[in-house]
């Protein structure tokens, strides 16, 4: 695919936001978006893990799965790579950057099972990105995810004092807000297409 990594990066944030157009990574998006502070922590962790696992899984795909013609095992291998990397990262941060561990590290186990991470790894295979494009797409998707969860957390913190029908409180109103935000993001879609 001949699209510049720079364009891909911006496209991943706005026009094909991993959360608002593909609806990936919803579970932690809904459960951690109660406060802006923790949303930010989780979002930064997602950016970090997404960028690096996109690169790692690109290498795993092109230097392990393709040569041995076992592309059909990509699901399992990608998951193993993501899980092992997150575990390792958690150990390293806990040891060498305790302050960072307490703000980011606790979110890492949540991220292992975040489908946005896995989704990005699959997209870069399906869309046949090269290594640089993969990294850019990973980083962009992460920032896009952070943007989406920050917006939702900001709105939800304003909602605390508002009267909401009982049946809609919590996940209900969050999903409606997410839907409206997704509609808003449709406005970006004409700028550049990556799909």
């Amino acid at each position: 695919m001949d699209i510049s990594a720079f364009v891909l990066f911006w496209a991943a944030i706005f026009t094909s936001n991993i959360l608002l157009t593909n609806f990936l990574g919803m579970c932690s998006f809904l459960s951690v978006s109660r406060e802006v502070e923790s949303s930010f922590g989780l979002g930064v962790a997602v950016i970090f893990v997404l960028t690096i696992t996109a690169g790692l899984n690109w290498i795993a795909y092109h230097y392990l799965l393709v040569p041995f013609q076992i592309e059909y095992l990509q699901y399992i291998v990608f998951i193993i790579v993501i899980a092992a990397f997150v575990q390792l990262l958690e150990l390293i941060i806990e040891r060498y950057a305790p302050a960072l561990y307490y703000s980011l590290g606790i979110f890492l186990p949540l991220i292992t099972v975040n489908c946005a991470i896995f989704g990005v790894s699959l997209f870069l295979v399906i869309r046949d990105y090269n290594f640089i494009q993969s990294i850019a797409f990973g980083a962009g998707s992460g920032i896009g995810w952070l943007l989406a969860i920050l917006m939702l957390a900001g709105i939800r913190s304003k909602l605390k004092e508002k009267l909401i029908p009982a049946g809609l409180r919590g996940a209900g109103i969050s999903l409606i807000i997410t839907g409206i935000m997704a509609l808003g993001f449709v406005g970006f879609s004409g700028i550049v297409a990556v799909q």
Partner: protein
Amino acid sequence: MTELILRDIGILTLVSVVFAIILVIAQKVLNNYGILKIRINKKRDVEVQGGNTLLSSLADKQIFIPSACGGRGSCGACKCIVTEGGGPLLPTEKPLLTKQEIEGNVRLACQVKVKSEVQIEIPESIFNIRRFRTRVTKIEDYTYDTKGITFTLLDPDKISFKAGQYMQLESQPYAKMKQKVVRAYSISSKPQDETSFQLIIRLVPEGICTTWVHQYLKEGDEVYLTGPYGDFFIRDTDADIIFVAGGSGKAPIKAMLEDLEIVGCNRKMTYYFGARTTKDLYLTEYMQHFESVFPDFQYVPVLSHAEPSENWQGRTGFVMPYF
């Protein structure tokens, strides 16, 4: 075809094994904090292997902080004050702590990891918790299904507890019951007896431990108990006291009354003992003798299923309306 599948499985296994090895090595290298010191109540030091939780590190050193959920951070029983080295408060602790507790440096011992020298404060009573080797010296039949069992301490040979606290009794395998179980029973004797204590145990149909106690335990047997645990004891105020307890629930109340008999008590006290029939009543005269010991104490047995033939003169029904 089969070869290909085997090769693929081999590659996948290899990938998994490589990652597993990397993680195991990382765990060994990165999670190794060496020997660290935990300073308790500013006077006692214990040395532990770093990297584990405070709860498990202390348990290794025979200091048993209470924990009901086994360290999953869901019960909040393992609260203790960490004055130094606990790191910032974790989001896993926040929901279980009040604002005052957070300001008072209260943490959950099962969430705090020992990564540097730690200073903690815990109630002195936690040091009291021991595993006692005891000998059964007396078994009394109180009713057809309730026994009072006296344990004399062998090692350690002294116990210090508050009236109302409980012990955990370890049963032994018997008949078809192959495993040991641990069950909690309140101490029914006064804390001034330091070398022995009594438990009152009522037979529960199909109960593993109570069946063992009632049908297999003999005088002279050696038994293990851990404790004392619990914070069910009388607070030092002037308020009136209402005791409500039926069956073997009389145990802690008996311990409290015997304790108060020695230290003295002028508070207004009433003990409502709920039971089904006269067959379930026990230690009635002993309880009534406390009415002459204290200036204002009354023992009120209440029967819910008394037969006319029993000729019961006392109160009937349930205890609640009589308060």
